[in-house]
């Protein structure tokens, strides 16, 4: 069997359990692929040199790429910042324990915008990652390394983290599936905090089913994370191959300026859901521009606080090792929390945030899921983020309203430009704790269309 690195998680698991293939062979294929492409694409900051054996379990020693803001015992954890260069955590994240207990093997650590601040992976202190679909372009971010790792077949499946778009936007730009769970569904313990009130780790995968399989491993209560949901999560793979007929779909933001490029593709996707028997209509939501203000203030405030621990006393490097983007965010967040300003900025932002939540409550009375574009554009050219410090916000505008409300969402690719080989993505959002719905719709869409070349390997 050739191209073992191209296998989906589902197929790889099947072949390994039927003893047709050894997990170590799959690992070796991924390692070979890393060695072949990582020099150009720079998605891995560190990786295995030789196959390693994992415990028995659903993930069957299969190789998983992990974003480098997730604490691991076997690899350094830098959050792509010089400040943490060479830092080896003495403990591992809860999701790493879960992945290992399920038999997964950490293949390596993937690049991100430093501290997950950004949507391009260009602000990494260890060099930008390039888009495997077309290396003149960016992979998006902040989980650009993980999305690119999946797109380049250097891993079977990957883990990313999202605050607002950081899983779904790079997944859209790299043409892969990215699932952001409900805030609190997956433990944050052991993940270098970005914006504590919105950070959500989730899977980045070749297919929706793979994403559901990995989410089944990652999800669940963690006594070390006070914000994690104590309820036992349902089995997410059970949402695969479920019909969407008679369910209600609201289409959002189609009248927004700047969406001319993606609009026809989202309309087409809406048409596909209609043809699958769903009731589809255009829906009206609160202006997502307000979400940018809310997110910018809340996220900066939390960032300024979360980065306060890097005082220079520990980790060997002082605060001069922060990059420009981190410094900008610390300054803005510090200002937003200042005495006399906190009411004007932080508290006002939290009030508007509550308004968005109420808006979604109303929307979900009428619709089971909401769909929109994952990003207003194809992947941007290399260097695009360097000219604008608000680069991420414009690209993330479509993600921020649901992110600040903690809602689950998934990106599935909807279009590939044959000339550039670049992708556009569809964003499916559901009420809190209804990842099952985004999986159900994502899977139904994926199977009703032919874009996903990996599915042929299934």
């Amino acid at each position, binding site marked *: 069997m050739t191209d073992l690195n191209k296998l989906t998680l589902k197929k790889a698991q099947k072949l390994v359990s039927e003893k047709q293939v050894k997990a170590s062979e799959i690992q070796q294929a991924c390692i070979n692929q890393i060695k072949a492409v990582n020099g150009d694409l720079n998605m891995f900051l560190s990786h295995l040199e030789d196959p390693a054996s994992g415990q028995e379990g659903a993930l069957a020693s299969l190789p998983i790429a992990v974003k480098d*803001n*997730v*604490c691991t015992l076997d690899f350094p*954890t830098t*959050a792509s910042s010089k400040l*943490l260069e060479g*830092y080896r*955590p*003495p*403990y591992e*994240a809860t999701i790493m324990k879960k992945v290992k207990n399920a038999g997964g093997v950490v293949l390596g650590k993937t690049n991100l915008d430093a501290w997950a601040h950004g949507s391009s992976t260009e602000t990494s202190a260890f060099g930008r990652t390039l888009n495997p679909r077309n290396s003149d372009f960016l992979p998006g971010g902040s989980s650009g390394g993980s999305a690119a790792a999946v797109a380049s077949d250097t891993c079977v499946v990957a883990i990313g983290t999202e605050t607002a778009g950081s899983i779904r936007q790079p997944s859209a730009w790299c043409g892969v599936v990215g699932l952001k769970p409900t805030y609190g569904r997956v433990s*944050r*313990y*052991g*993940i*270098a*905090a970005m*914006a*504590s*009130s919105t950070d959500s780790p989730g899977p980045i995968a070749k297919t929706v089913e793979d994403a559901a399989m990995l989410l089944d491993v990652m999800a669940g209560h963690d*006594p*070390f*994370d*006070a*914000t994690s949901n104590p309820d036992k999560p349902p089995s997410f793979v059970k949402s695969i191959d479920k019909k969407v007929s008679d369910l209600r779909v609201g289409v959002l933001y189609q009248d927004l300026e700047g969406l001319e490029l993606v609009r026809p593709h989202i309309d087409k996707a809406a048409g596909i859901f209609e043809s699958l028997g769903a009731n589809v209509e255009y829906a009206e939501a609160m202006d997502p521009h307000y979400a940018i203000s809310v997110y910018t203030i809340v996220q900066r*405030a*939390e960032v*300024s*606080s979360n*980065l*306060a*621990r*890097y*005082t220079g*006393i*520990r980790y060997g490097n002082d605060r001069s090792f922060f990059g420009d983007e981190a410094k900008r965010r610390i300054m803005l967040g*510090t200002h937003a*929390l*200042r*005495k006399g300003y*906190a009411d004007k900025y*932080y508290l006002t932002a939290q009030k508007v945030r509550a308004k968005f939540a109420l808006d979604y409550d109303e929307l979900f009375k009428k619709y089971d899921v909401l769909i929109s574009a994952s990003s207003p554009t194809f992947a941007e050219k290399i260097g695009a983020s360097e000219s604008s410090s608000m680069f991420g916000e414009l690209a993330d505008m479509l993600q921020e309203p649901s992110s600040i409300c903690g809602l689950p969402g998934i990106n599935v690719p909807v279009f590939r430009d044959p000339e550039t080989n670049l992708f556009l993505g569809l964003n499916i959002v559901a009420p809190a704790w209804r990842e099952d719905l985004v999986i159900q719709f994502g899977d139904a869409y994926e199977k009703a269309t032919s874009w996903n070349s990996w599915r042929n390997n299934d």
Partner: protein
Amino acid sequence: MTDNKYELVCGMEVHAELKTASKMFCGCKNDPFGAEKPNSHTCPVCLALPGALPVANKKAIEWTIKLGLALGCKINLFSKFDRKHYFYPDLPKGYQISQYDLPFCYDGKLETSLGTVRIHRIHLEEDTGKLLHKKINGEDVSLIDFNRGGVPLIEIVTEADIHSPEQAKEYGKKLRELLRYLEISDCDMDQGGMRLEANVSLRPVGESGLPSYKTELKNINSFKFMEQAINFEMKRQEKKLIAGEEIQQETLGWNTTTQETFSQRSKEEAEDYRYFPDPDLPPVRFTQAQIDEMKASLPELPTQIVKRWEGEYQIEPRFGSKLFNTASEANILDSLFSSAKNKKVAVDKLASALVNKQISLPIVESDVEKTINDFSALHSVEDVDTVELKTTIEKILSDNPDVKEKYSRGEKQVLGFLMGQVMRVSGKKLDPAAVRATILLSLEE
């Protein structure tokens, strides 16, 4: 204040470490003073490693509310933890998890013999690590020990109701008594388990508003020093006020050698802690029914117990209050007293024998019987042979010829001396009433 032109206006802030088994936001052992070596009671959470998250200690929250209820506070049914930012090497996160605008308890009071002290608020937070400044290999170094970092710490803030150094001292002592009674804090002042701060200012007698300035006496680790420091500070401020000088808003320490306050930090600019609700910790909600239940399970408070004992057992309050520090101790005494009463033992005398350390206090419930037996043994009397007794008394009187003279001059205290001598010489446990009567007879002769 010789001429009483000014009066003290003082509010206190007291920090006390709670003695929960584990720390405030992690599972580390809460025993900074018992730790075998520095940084042995630490984990990713209390070291603030990247990715670590706090989880609040339920017991510490319940104990804070317990104290609040004991001080008659109102309880916020919706409360939360906030981040308080400042940079200091002993604060690993760069912020302390504390409570800003919604403390667990507010509006209580503590009575002192010099007036009521209103409690403004009680909140729960985490303690910091400890810095050690040492010389190692000839080099000055600063070391950090995080064993204390993350230990639950409560802060009890009063209104500016304290009007004398004595009252400040009494308030502090009463608060410590209560914390120990509720068994939520050891209040070990030497180790920093309880720390006192006083905000001191003066106002002309007859005025009632708050003065426009205050100085903060900080890092004082004994009630005596606190009293001395407030005294000193009153004199210092009075002099300045009389001379028409402005008093600097500053933080002061107390130098126990020179007996003077000294400036630690001027407070011209208000610090900005950039408080905001900690997004890692969900808000804490209680129902009124839960609070009512906690209130009902609150132990009877020391003053009530002493009063009840006086009524039930005729135990003098000055004895009653000396017999216990904690609620568990008071419980054991209650069984002792009721059991003694059932056995027709004189409970008031039993209590005074305990205070005078003639017999030892029961440590556990099962000691009760033994204590009663000890007391009975103490007070069992041998039959008095009146002839023998009289001979003994005569002998003592002839050995001490001045005693009879003193007695006739009205110096009644010689009676005590004679009682003691008789008991000693006879070497027996005699009924004091009989001895006394016989001595009196001999003296009258």
